[in-house]
């Protein structure tokens, strides 16, 4: 890492810290002005205590691992078939014209609404959370992959024809790499929405995980636990987003796409 990049990183961390400080300040001010009791709006100090406690006694680590595991499972299970299916459907406009409305009708339905059926088919424990994350991640990746495949530069296809490529070669050497930037932006989008639905996923019959932590804290009227959970979800979501942004930027620079 060069000196410039190091300075850049330093500046980002500073900005982040200032942002978080402002957030804390606003929170404390609301608390003071609204004069809310602890049971309704815990103070930053109390939430900090809760967080430290959770870190020290290890509960946090356990739930974190569980959540990340489920998230990884649901996300990976979603994106692999979504990309493959998207590549195929993107090349089959006739079929896509029929599949598209099906997806467009299913997509606006919140994964939460499906929960009775998810429990019916997938039971309780890890699976419902994984399924909900799957649903949340699958559609964005599928749609962006199809869109990406459709807008592959016609010239690339002509080059492939000129080289007398067969279908598999066409997919592997042309379609996939050409659609790759679109696919990655779909992965980014999907990561965000899947993470948002982690809480919803872990509400359905899960006994662990960050989402459960929030739900359980809420059930036991422990609002400082709810806020601690929110903070973890927010920070982790932020970190995941930055990681995939880095990947996206790398792809962009590699493909010669200026951001």
């Amino acid at each position, binding site marked *: 890492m060069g000196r410039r990049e190091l300075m850049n990183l330093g500046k980002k961390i500073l900005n982040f810290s200032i942002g978080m400080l402002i957030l804390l300040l606003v929170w404390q001010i609301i608390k003071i002005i609204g004069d809310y009791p602890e049971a309704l709006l815990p103070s930053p100090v109390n939430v900090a205590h809760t967080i430290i406690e959770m870190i020290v006694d290890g509960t946090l680590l356990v739930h974190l691992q569980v959540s990340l595991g489920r998230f990884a499972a649901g996300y990976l299970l979603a994106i692999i078939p979504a990309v493959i299916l998207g590549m195929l459907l993107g090349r089959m406009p006739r079929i896509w014209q029929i599949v598209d409305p099906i997806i467009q009708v299913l997509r606006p339905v919140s994964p939460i609404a499906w929960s009775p059926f998810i*429990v019916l088919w997938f039971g309780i424990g890890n699976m419902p959370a994984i399924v909900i994350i799957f649903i949340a991640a699958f559609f964005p990746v599928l749609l962006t992959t199809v869109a990406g495949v459709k807008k592959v530069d016609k010239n690339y296809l002509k080059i492939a024809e000129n080289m007398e490529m067969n279908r598999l070669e066409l997919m592997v050497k042309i379609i996939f790499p050409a659609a790759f930037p679109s696919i990655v932006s779909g992965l980014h989008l999907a990561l965000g929405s899947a993470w948002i639905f982690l809480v919803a996923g872990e509400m359905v019959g899960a006994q662990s995980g960050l989402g459960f932590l929030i739900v359980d804290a809420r059930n036991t009227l422990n609002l400082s636990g709810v806020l601690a959970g929110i903070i973890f979800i927010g920070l982790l979501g932020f970190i995941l987003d930055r990681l995939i942004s880095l990947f996206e930027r790398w792809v962009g620079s590699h493909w010669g796409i200026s951001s």
Partner: protein
Amino acid sequence: SPSKQSSEDNPTIKIGYLPITHAGPLFLGDHLHNGQYDGYQVELVKFGSWPDLMDALNTGRIDGASVLAELAMKANELGIDLQTVALAHKDGNVLISSNDIQTTADLKDKTYAIPHKFSSHNILLNEMLKKNGMSYDDVNVVEMTPAEMPAALSENRIAGYVVAEPFGAIAVAMEKGKVHAHSDEIWPNSYCCIIVLHTDFIRNNKEVVQSFVNEYVALGKQADLKGDEVYDAFSKFMKVDRAVLELSMQWISYDELRVDEEEYNKLSDFMVEMGISDNPPTYKNFVDNTFIDGAS
């Protein structure tokens, strides 16, 4: 309706509830009087889950609720000023198990569902296990939305569940499960849901609260007769077959709604024993029997 106009300026009591048989007298009152009473009105506010109801209750968005006693006690412990004016009902809970569970010992290492940690259902489960020489850790207890329990049972995701009615009766009616135990076999006269009101509200509306409790007690007595009008009322609030409701109604009673100190302390002790409360409110601080005593 003509009565509505005259009652425009009457105070309104907002009562939160969940669509379960435990709030039966409220449903009957709504059915018979459409929420209009002499000098006050009752507005029933439906919630989808206990936490939703508690959020509204704690923040003062509703004046009172028919709510799990343990949850209300926990809220009080956390500084939310609530007072119990009556029991919502007595008994009325069954422990359901799948058809292949014969004895309680069969439940070992199986998954068993409860609606909420702060519930009498949780206590009932614990007591049942204790009575059979098992401990709470011998089963895998999960919290679940009541509506999902019958489905989970029928798909063998859980070995059984204990929850408010009519969700128990549904599994029995579907023949997906059976009654494993009645609450009165485990904990006679068990308390479950209670009627709580904000202390401020009680202080400022003493007469209204008195009439409300009077009415609730009367409705409870009527509901306990389990006549046709009760089923008509219930079917407005719970969309289940009459057969299921009839089954549920065999297990519940709505008379004798006074909170008894001895029973209350028993409940309180259970909570401490199970570790779901460190410092539950005392009977004196949490229960206000002046209204129910004035009603009889």
